[in-house]
């Protein structure tokens, strides 16, 4: 410390240089990525999927299924026209819809990662009126396959005819055309979600050229994410500087010397630079969580500096050497600052125990930032005080000020009378606390765990508006997918070979005239030989069939024409065998899916669902004159197969593979939810489990969910349990630290009481007012613990030392409610208000964090100065009897904070 005070300029220079280094390491690769390939540039991540680790099973499955079913992230354009009685189904509006669709098809650019490929819109999977087929009756029993809207309609009547056709097709109704027949949607699939900004911007520009009464709502998850990324930076650019300003004014209010306040502000900035620099340099991303790091570090970073300044303020005497005053200040404050820093770090670091990667990063880096702030506070702040010219401190300090003002301030008087209440009526305070706690416990059990990323935007945000409009018109814009997979049992290739051999023999013996194939007997014999040979080698039934298939095909290249037909017949038998596993052609399986879909509708959350069963029923109906009674699953697997082959005679044969894999072993049902609330998705999941439990099918079908709406539920569940663990973990760590600090179990437990009551109250209130327990609320619990224990440390330490010097608690408590309590209130105000600028942020989670952390800190401050003195008053004879420990601890904690 002496060395620091002797070379204040060197300390300052070191701080500036390291900060510049951090800025360069993070800034250079961001601005000039090519010149600095070894360094990590800034990387923004707004993907909610990343709330789960990349290798998390649900996420791996989600991505595998997306690929398997050719599903893409989509930009959704909802088009409404409220001024026309038929909505957008008029000549003029549909012309614009057509033009926009044609334009969307062209939005492709060379892929920066692979110049041979293109990135942007996936044209063949684009869903729009003009890109889908209509299957309808063409008169005289003729069925017509045609584009639903090959060209823009030339009359309003044609526009209405298009609507009529579209509403007949279940797949389109409620998805592409609104159920009320007024609005349409475009679903624009993207090669990757990174393209969404470019695509959405281009679409907006195109829409701007239209004019007219139509409104175009451009939305979809990738667009929301992009917007989110932008607003995240707005948050950092607005809230963080406002926080700086607020802290600056609060400190100015307390110390009245700009020259002194500059030091803590510099420490706050340096801590933020170090932390964010390290975050970027280590390749971590700017995520919704990590974007809040600066605003968390700033108020915490100035805290220790405030302690030093307060103490310096009290001790400063112009006539004494400044160096000695600072040394005395640092000696008094070193330990308590270390401990409060450690508890805060422990609170944040405990977030590392959650299974959510962005939350881990958030917790660990704030812990680092708090540590950095502490380091520069104990080095740079004393050094900076040494650098201040003497004349600038003229009239500074308690001594100097006391001579000027005599009457105690309002706050001083208010706090003193509060202290009296806790001393005279401790039971009243404790009883009130107890009653509030009971109410809090009740409230706690009312807590509703729920989240919805769309609701992270303000209600007036264009994304929220689009979301509302589209959900009013369509079957729901929140997509979840239920995959059903045939869980086939294997019998082993040997047993299978035997069965196949029997089939070959039976075919060879068949003597029906119709089935006669020359050379069949001879060819069967040869095929059976081959099956026998293969049976020992093939790993699975499928491998056996594949090997035999290859053998026969090779044979066909050389055999004479006379036996070729028999070999073709063997191929036919192979195909028959293969088809036995194609369960999604089985009528009973499709009927089961259909029943399941009806059940989904009964949940009230699901607006619509699409599946293979709907495709089959629709095509079947059109094959049978479009009659409503024919809207059903036909009675044999062959009939289903032939219906589906008919369906594939369209402009979009690949559409079938969004619903089933070509091996017909896996199928997925598209579920459109009206709400993206996790609680609603969870209800649907539960309801499906129940239905499947009550309706066991003969075939073993494994069901599993994917889709982002479902992923949100998964990470929320992990978050809730993870947060509970993190909270309990940090609670224990802080408790152990307290017991060690006070060298007493009783005092350790005592120090935990105010924050426990505070957190209980806050979460009780959350339950009572019906605020959803969402991501930001979850994160707050454990980090507020580390912050609010500080007050108890200071309060108890000063109480103990004053008890010792004054001899009894009656006298001591009055002193405690003087300067020490004043310091606690100051701190609660600075930190609490320091977070309030988050209210200016454009995104709801930031606002939630701002309000709740301010509430927690102010409540914790109040709980500390009310509950602890009341408890001490009631327990004074017992707790102050632990003389030895007290004496020892007081030497280390003397002074505490002020």
């Amino acid at each position, binding site marked *: 410390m002496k060395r620091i005070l002797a070379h204040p300029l060197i300390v300052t220079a070191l701080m500036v240089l390291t900060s510049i280094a951090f800025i360069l390491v993070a800034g250079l690769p961001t601005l000039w990525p090519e010149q600095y390939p070894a360094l990590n540039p800034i990387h923004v991540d707004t993907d909610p999927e990343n709330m789960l680790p990349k290798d998390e099973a649900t996420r791996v499955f989600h991505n595998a299924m997306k690929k398997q079913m050719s599903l893409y992230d989509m930009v959704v354009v909802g088009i409404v026209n409220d001024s026309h009685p038929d909505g957008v189904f008029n000549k003029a509006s549909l012309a614009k819809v057509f033009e926009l669709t044609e334009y969307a098809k062209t939005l492709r650019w060379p892929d920066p990662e692979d110049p041979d490929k293109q990135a942007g819109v996936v044209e063949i999977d684009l869903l729009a009126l003009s890109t889908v087929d209509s299957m309808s009756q063409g008169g005289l029993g003729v*069925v017509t396959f045609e584009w639903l809207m090959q060209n823009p309609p030339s009359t309003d009547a044609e526009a209405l005819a298009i609507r009529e056709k579209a509403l007949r097709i279940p797949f389109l109704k409620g998805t592409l055309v609104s159920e009320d027949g007024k609005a349409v949607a475009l679903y624009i699939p993207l090669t990757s979600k990174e393209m969404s900004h470019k695509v959405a911007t281009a679409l907006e520009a195109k829409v701007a050229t239209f004019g007219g009464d139509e409104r175009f709502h451009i939305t979809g998850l990738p667009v929301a994410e992009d917007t989110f990324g932008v607003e995240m930076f707005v948050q950092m650019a607005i809230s963080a500087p406002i926080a700086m300003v607020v802290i600056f004014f609060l400190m100015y209010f307390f110390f009245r010397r700009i020259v002194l306040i500059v030091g803590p502000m510099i420490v706050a900035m340096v801590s933020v630079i170090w932390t964010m620099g390290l975050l970027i340099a280590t390749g971590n991303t700017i995520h919704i969580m990590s974007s809040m790091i600066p605003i968390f570090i700033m108020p915490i970073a100035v805290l220790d500096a405030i302690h030093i300044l307060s103490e310096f303020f009290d001790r400063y005497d112009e006539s004494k050497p400044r160096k000695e005053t600072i040394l005395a200040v640092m000696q008094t404050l070193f330990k308590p600052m270390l401990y409060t820093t450690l508890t805060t770090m422990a609170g944040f670091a405990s977030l590392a125990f959650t299974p959510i990667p962005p939350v881990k990063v958030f917790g660990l880096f704030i812990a680092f930032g708090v540590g950095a702030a502490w380091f520069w506070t104990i080095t740079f702040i004393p050094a900076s005080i040494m650098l201040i010219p003497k004349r600038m401190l003229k009239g500074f300090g308690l001594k100097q000020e006391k001579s000027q003002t005599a009457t105690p301030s309002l706050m001083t008087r208010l706090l003193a009378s509060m202290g009296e209440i806790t001393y005279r009526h401790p039971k009243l305070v404790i009883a009130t606390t107890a009653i509030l706690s009971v109410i809090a416990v009740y409230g706690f059990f009312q807590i509703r765990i729920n989240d919805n990323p769309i609701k992270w935007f303000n209600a007036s945000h264009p994304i929220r508006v689009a979301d509302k409009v589209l959900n009013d018109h369509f079957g729901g814009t929140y997509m979840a997918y239920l995959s059903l997979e045939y869980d086939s049992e294997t019998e082993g290739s040997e047993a299978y070979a035997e069965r196949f051999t029997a089939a070959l023999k039976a075919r060879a013996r068949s003597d029906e005239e119709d089935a006669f194939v020359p050379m069949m007997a001879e060819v069967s014999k040869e095929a059976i030989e081959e099956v026998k040979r293969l049976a020992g080698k093939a790993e699975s039934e499928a491998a056996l069939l594949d090997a035999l298939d290859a053998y026969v095909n090779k044979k*066909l*290249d050389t055999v004479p*024409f006379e036996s070729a037909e028999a070999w073709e017949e063997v*191929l036919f038998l192979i195909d028959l065998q293969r*088809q036995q596993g194609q369960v999604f052609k089985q009528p009973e399986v499709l009927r089961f899916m259909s029943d399941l879909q009806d059940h989904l509708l009964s949940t009230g959350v699901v607006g619509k669902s699409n599946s293979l069963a709907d495709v089959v029923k629709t095509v079947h109906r059109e094959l049978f004159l479009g009659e409503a009674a024919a809207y059903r699953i036909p009675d044999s697997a062959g009939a289903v197969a032939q*219906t589906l082959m008919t369906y594939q005679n*369209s402009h979009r*044969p690949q559409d079938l593979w969004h619903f089933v894999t070509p091996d017909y072993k896996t199928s997925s049902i598209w579920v459109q939810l009206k709400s993206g609330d996790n609680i609603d998705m969870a209800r649907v999941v539960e309801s499906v489990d129940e239905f499947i439990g009550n309706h066991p099918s003969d075939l073993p079908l494994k069901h599993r969910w994917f889709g982002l709406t479902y992923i949100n539920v998964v990470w929320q569940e992990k978050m809730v349990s993870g947060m509970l663990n993190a909270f309990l973990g940090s609670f224990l760590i802080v408790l152990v630290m307290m017991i060690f600090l006070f060298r007493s179990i009783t005092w350790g437990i005592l120090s935990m009481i105010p924050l426990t009551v505070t957190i209980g109250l806050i979460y009780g209130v959350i339950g009572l007012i019906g605020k959803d327990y969402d991501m930001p609320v979850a994160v707050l619990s454990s980090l507020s613990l580390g912050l609010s224990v500080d007050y108890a440390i200071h309060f108890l330490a000063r109480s103990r030392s004053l008890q010792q010097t004054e001899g009894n608690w009656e006298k001591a408590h009055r002193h405690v409610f003087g300067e020490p309590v004043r310091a606690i209130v100051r701190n609660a105000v600075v930190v609490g208000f320091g977070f309030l600028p988050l209210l200016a942020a454009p995104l709801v989670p930031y606002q939630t964090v701002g309000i709740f952390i301010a509430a927690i800190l102010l409540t914790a401050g109040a709980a500390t100065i009310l509950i602890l003195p009341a408890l001490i008053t009631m327990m004074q004879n017992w707790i102050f009897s632990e003389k030895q420990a007290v004496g020892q601890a007081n030497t280390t904690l003397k002074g505490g904070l002020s």
Partner: protein
Amino acid sequence: MKPYRWHITLGAFILLLSIPFPAAAKETLSADAIIEKANHVAYYQGKDGRAQVSMNITDSQGRKRQRRFTLLRRNVPSETQVDADQQFYVYFHRPADVNKTVFMVHKHVGKEDDRWLYLPALDLVKRIAASDERTSFVGSDFFYEDVSGRGIDEDRHTLIETTKNFYVLENHPKDPAEVEFESYKVWIHRKTFIPIKMSYFNKNKEIYRTYEALKVETIQGRPTVVKARMKDERGQSETVVDYRNVTYDIDLPDEIFTERYLRNPPKRYLR
């Protein structure tokens, strides 16, 4: 004994392409004349014909599906027109569950075709409106029009280049609203008049669909494509079609191309 599948390698085909043209062959043909000859070679050789066809469809994920059918084709004799109306009968063998499904076309030049579908499992004969022939042929990358032939009067043809081996023609639809392409380019072999390659361009002048003849054999004196590929450049899926046991002039009777034969396939002609 004749092998069931002929094998003239691609090498042989290249040899065929490299046959030098005598100077006399340098007569200048009009674009329409070239297209007429190519159309004849591709769709009208012999008075009728049969082929055992395998379609192997590979999607963008590499998943394969196969269709196996017999194709019968008969030119409707006409006093007044050459290369005009035709009849097609497509009988499916595999996948096993679409076995016996039949697709039949009466192709008319100058008016809409007649199309029928027979679905045995539903015991249903269905007439299909042929207003749009540019839809997928049973889920493959080929269109119905690729199987039965696009009317040569539907496009305007321009000869844009004559290379050593090929006439390169650009074709624009007379009614652009009816088709999804803006134009297509075709490479027609100068000696055989076989269309070797076709590239379809969309409105952005990007190629989105490509046809290539992969193997040509001379069957009964007629150069015949026995293997071809259609590739969808957008979805990266492709369909390779193999024509085996191609036979011309088998005297197919007119009557088998009627509704009655959909339910009772003419077995002896399908082998």
